[in-house]
């Protein structure tokens, strides 16, 4: 799990990627997704904490800068390969056993709806060891429990290097709860994703 070993990280059998971020997350995600190879073949599902009121423009913002289809996740939508899904504001986003997406309005988790924990836990239940979960910069504890759940279900976990994270609270909270498979900088996370793609083709 050190940086050198992780740079050669190779994770076979990944079927889906989930990513969670909070404060500082837009830049972090742009940095990762901006370098994805054309025709990236895996689904990516992202929760980025947002103020509830606003209509989310995340999908539009990213669609202009990412070389894969980017959409706001819709209820009961089947997860398509090579698509980047963002959770919209005000609803939790989950993955169902039939690999469709679902929305719900249960109470906030760590003051957040959507909650990273709910996405990670439900995706782990569905994808098991085929899941790669990545937790980035943020100022709260969301996602830590979710990463632990992913690991307990055989999935691969990655935490952004707290030294690099704009706000290190969220990565640190995750590290306090479990030992991830990798602690990586954003650029290494980008490399990891690119390597997944080449290995899956």
């Amino acid at each position: 799990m050190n940086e050198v070993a992780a740079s050669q990280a190779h994770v076979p059998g990944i079927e889906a990627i989930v990513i969670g971020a909070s404060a500082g997350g837009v830049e972090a995600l742009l940095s990762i997704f901006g370098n994805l190879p054309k025709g990236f073949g895996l689904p990516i599902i992202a929760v980025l904490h947002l103020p509830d009121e606003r209509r989310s423009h995340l999908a539009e913002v990213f669609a202009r800068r990412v070389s894969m289809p980017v959409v706001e996740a819709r209820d009961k939508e089947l997860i398509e390969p090579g698509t980047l899904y963002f959770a919209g504001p005000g609803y939790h986003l989950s993955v169902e056993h039939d690999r469709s997406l679902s929305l719900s309005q249960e109470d906030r988790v760590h003051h957040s709806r959507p909650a990273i924990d709910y996405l990670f836990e439900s995706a782990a239940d569905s994808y098991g060891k085929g899941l790669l979960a990545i937790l980035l910069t943020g100022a709260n504890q969301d996602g830590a429990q979710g990463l632990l759940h992913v690991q307990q279900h055989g999935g691969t976990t990655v935490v952004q290097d707290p030294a690099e994270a704009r706000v290190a609270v969220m990565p640190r909270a995750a590290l306090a709860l479990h030992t991830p498979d990798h602690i990586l900088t954003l650029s290494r996370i980008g490399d990891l994703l690119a390597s997944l793609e080449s290995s899956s083709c």
Partner: protein
Amino acid sequence: MDKSTDIELRLLIEAIYLKYSYDFRDYSGASVKRRVAHALRQFDCKTISALQERVLHDPTAFMQLLQFLTIPVSEMFRDPSHFLAIRQEVVPLLKTYPSIKIWIAGCSTGEEVYSMAILLREEGLLERTIIYATDINPSSLEKAKQGIFSLENVRAYTHNYQQAGGQRSFADYYTAAYDYAIFDKTLRENVTFADHSLATDSVFSETQLISCRNVLIYFNKKLQDRAFGLFHESLCHRGFLVLGSKETLDFSAYSKQFEPLVKQERIYRKL
């Protein structure tokens, strides 16, 4: 270990159905699983099997569990632009009917019901409208009948009301008492509150408008289609179906039998 949890969860849901006729079998699994996990902690049960034993032998415990299984998250004039669109696009057409029947399916604690009643009163339609407000949770229905909401929440609703095209002062509709807002009981004179399940019950009346908001997201596709089937059967020719802001007919078998009137606001008309 986790496989066992999934088995236990299915058995619990089956037991609830067999014993109490509440059917959660086609609810979206991820959310049900979380809510049961939450209930386990509150009931101080170590396993779902232990919870199952309790609810099978103790109807009171089941009623407590039901409060976890249903999600009473609601607000008045939620998504104000939705209500503004109803006022501007639907009301003029509703006015052509001599009498109107409206079904608010999954009305929870009544916020949607009072919102609709206030809108109809301001448009001069409430007196010739019958509203059926249904839910599966008797406790929620009881609260809806009371029409008493926390004053703190009502302050937030006031903003929604204004944005939704409200024509008066929102305070005209309630009396403040301590920390509560007691809503004008004449608003519910034409409201019938009733126990009804979209999963197990059938259509009870012909209606001109059905509002079912933030209910269908908790159903899987099969159950969503059952609900859409009931709505289709209940609605009169060219009747209106209004959904929550994240709910859509797009993935449904019924998508061809409705047309969007205001797609962005999830307002549809039966074809």
